[in-house]
């Protein structure tokens, strides 16, 4: 699991693309897009150990 920066100078532009992908969608549509995206990225990563670790870490961090 990579938790140091892995995007280099592409970070800002990829973040902007992510926001653009959501532009004009309702909150429900955005949730659906996020779900599809996570499933696709999971398939793209294709490594069960990494995905398990990512799921655990994302669940661990609470934003409130």
């Amino acid at each position, binding site marked *: 699991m990579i*938790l140091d*920066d892995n995007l280099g100078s592409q*970070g*800002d532009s990829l973040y902007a693309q992510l926001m653009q992908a959501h532009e004009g969608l309702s909150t429900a549509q*955005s949730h659906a897009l996020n779900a599809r995206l996570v499933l696709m990225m999971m398939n793209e990563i294709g490594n069960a150990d990494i995905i398990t670790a990512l799921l655990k870490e994302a669940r661990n961090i609470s*934003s409130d």
Partner: protein
Amino acid sequence: MAYDYAPFPYVAPPGLTTSEPRHPVAIVGAGPIGLAMAIDLAQHGIKSVVLDDNNVVSIGSRAICWAKRTLEIFDRLGIGSRVLDKGVTWKVGRLFHGADEVYSFDLLPEAGHKYPAFINLQQYYVEQYLVERSQELSDWIDLRFLNKVTDHRDHGDHVALTIETPDGPYTLEADYYVAAEGAGSPTRKRMDLPFEGQTFEEHFLIVDVELPHSPFETEDPERWFWFAPPFHQGQSALLHKQPDNIYRIDLQLGAETDPKTEATEEKVIPRIKAIIGDMDFRLDWMSVYKFRCAKLDQFVHNRVLFVGDSAHVVSPFGARGGNGGIQDVDNLGWKLAAVLNGAPTSLLDTYQQERSFGSAENILNSSRATNFMTPKSDIETLFRNETLALAAKHPFARKLINSGRLSQPCTLAGMDLQSGDHPLVGQALIDLPLGNGWLVEQAQGQFTLLTLDSQSWPDTVASLALPHTPVCGARYGTTGAFLIRPDGHICAYFETPDTAAITAALTRATGGHA
């Protein structure tokens, strides 16, 4: 202590009573960009008349963050050390989400450079230093306050100006007309040029306060940035230090606020106390802004040239407004001087090519920062908040937090004046310690060949042998030579002293056909 806004004297211009000989260059606007333009031209031996409708420096500090590249250009213009000495160099940055610190970072300058990544200095000081430098160059610079340009006409081979003074109107002529009148550019409006882009809905309250002591834990200057600050629900806030114990506070107010009621002491004082605690302070300046990103398509219109805010405006996150304008000056100064000395006018088109690109890059960066700081939907807010949540623990997320990416010079690689594809070609020169000084002090202002080895390099152009130090090796390598333009950008690299190749690169870099 409050800055003393001493007015500059108005002197009745000769044009009121006689017809003035045609000026090589008329610069409209004596803001930081117009003044820097006049100094740059003077240092290339070109005379100019600078016309400003006002007679004091910028009221309120406005621009405070001056980036490394700007300081290096200021060095060449003769005010770099003064700006560095007076300015504040930050030590620590802290980022908060709500009341909690997400992370802090060290801003210690990298060794081996004369100037740090940036310093904080009020715009009025920068303008004062530029005015004083212009006065030193009074054989070249004719600085006229309370001279308001009300009309201009491009006659093909010169421009005629109409100017309003306290003693009435007069006219003058100039070979070239540089519009440096700021964001509201009357020249741009007269010419009816489209100036389009994005306006952000949120209002920002900008306040400068003088404090009796540092609000930070130590006296070291810090920069504090809050997302969703506890004292100011749902928005962002920024606190950083300027000289004279003046602190800048930026508060994002949201779209629906009324700027008139926000910029009142009743509203502002409680907010400031919430940030700095209960200490006595003096309100130095405050203003409410809505920010905009926009640029002209064309900076060059025959004999009328646009520089600084009159050519492009950005939101201030990343400090790309004034810094971007100084790079316009750096790029245009030597080219306009060369054209006035007989170089092909097509050289001015490369100002358009290079700086239109640079300003688009600045707009892209400040728009992204503004978008990150002002989420437009629930989902954007969600992504931002989760990025902040991850950042407390994971470095990758810290990189995604965007409260402004500080102004950097753009690369000019692949554009008309550059030759070859060495990775450093197109970049601004990287400073180096040189025994008794710095590279930025010695390699700017004229074409210079920076040589790295002991091959016998031709003397068709000024040259400077770089030291055989590890830091030089790491920044430039150990063999060959780089050709540096007067604005400090690298425009060619040579492995061997091939005189024909060097001449061709020089011809190309000066707008000729190689």
